[in-house]
């Protein structure tokens, strides 16, 4: 299941764990990324709190936790090569995996068509 937030993040659910990244639209708006700060594995995140930071040359942007849960894995490759995120933000450029407190929270998020309409 692929879902999107109004903060321009995407989540792909596999079991009770969601892989999370920034949308292609967000990556396009930010431009070339030069630095990424990822959460720590094991960190407990509450929906809405700053989970990661992505920085372009011109600005730093917070990436908020779209749902509550525990970080199980981070994308070290993206962390060490931030520029690679822009090339495939909704695939190889994922940021972290979150074991959701309640996977049914996904249902409240936008599907691809709704997000495409939102990001217009």
């Amino acid at each position, binding site marked *: 299941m692929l879902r999107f937030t109004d*903060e321009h993040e995407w989540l792909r659910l596999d079991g009770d764990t969601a892989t999370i990244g920034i949308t292609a639209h967000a990556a396009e*708006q930010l431009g070339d990324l030069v630095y990424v700060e990822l959460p720590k594995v094991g960190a407990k995140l509450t929906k809405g709190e*700053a989970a990661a*930071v992505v920085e*372009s040359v*011109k600005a730093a942007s917070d990436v908020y936790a779209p749902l509550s849960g525990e970080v199980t894995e981070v994308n070290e490759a993206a962390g060490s090569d931030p520029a690679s995120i822009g090339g495939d933000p909704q695939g190889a450029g994922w940021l972290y995996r979150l074991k959701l407190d309640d996977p049914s929270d996904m249902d409240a998020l936008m599907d691809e068509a709704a997000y495409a309409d939102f990001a217009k």
Partner: protein
Amino acid sequence: MSWGCPMSPNAAGASSPSESISVAPPLAQTPLHAFHLRHGAKMVPFAGYAMPLQYPAGLLQEHRHTRRAAGLFDVSHMGQIVLRPRSGEVAEAARALEAVIPIDVLGLAEGRQRYAFLTDAAGGILDDLMVAHLPGRLVVVVNAANKAADTAHLRATLPDSVAVEPVLGGLIALQGPNAAAALGRLLGHPADLEAMRFMDVREVAIFGAPCLVSRSGYTGEDGFEIAVPAEAAEALAEALIADASVLPVGLGARDSLRLEAGLPLHGADIDPGTSPVEAGLAWAISPVRRSGGARVGGFPGAARILEEITRGPARRRVGLRPEGRAPVRAGAMLFADAAADEAIGHVTSGGFGPSLEAPVAMGFVPAALAAPGTRVFAELRGTRLPLVVSRLPFVPAGFKRG
């Protein structure tokens, strides 16, 4: 996620892009507005103008291309002001201007320009500028955000015998190691242009339009700034980027280029709260205007500024290299060590330096901590990160001085 705050405090969109759209008055357009749209620029509000933030090549490539080849920048938003003595004697305008800037203008030869700043009575920097000596007049180029205030200040302080005339027109910067070759190819290699050195100024006809060309810029590279009549600006810009070595470059890369070059931005690194000596700009204050000089003082804030030249300022603008990968940006507080409670200063500009492939910043620290190699700490998202005080510029300048 939240889009971060771009550019400088001078930007009309200083708080957030959406907010600036709702509250800002309609944006002015430069003579190159259609050029920017045609070449796919992402436009942003800046100092009341719609300006290109970047083109499709993107900020990193635009930055690197300027260092490696040449970049074309629209700087038409900046203020061009002619100071014309009614007597025709430029010395009269020079003498009058010396009453508001601590620079030797009387000694500025025809065909040359100098870096200068307007100071206030407290010794703060109202604006920084370039002043050029042309036949029968001085030409001043000031920051976009300050041009109305500067024009009013000059009108209020210069005598009636010197007319203060804002110029509406295009201003195009061509910057980079290939800039001279590209401009030369376009103009058929005129000898007077080829002979220009750093800070020379020439009146040149380009495609029949009277232009003012200076060999200067804001990137740390060799290059030119070309004042061109508005109606001729677009044709000139198109002709310049038709050269394979020239890429259009937006405000984003202009900011990262000047940051790497250690050049201060008014409204960020310097402002009325900073003195020229604190800001490391005392080099521009001519010996003739200093203690012991023939025309010592006589400019606003002279007492403080001359005192600081003699005794040294309490704090200094320095270059800062974060030891890690995280950019440290304007506003970050600086501390003497990882645990100190009291901030010792703050970062005034900072970001990622594409040519250095590392974060770079500038800020103010107490004079005792201003020596290169000194370690200080910046607070970033609740963590103290180490930075090393570094010499400016971060990248060597490519000016044609010879």
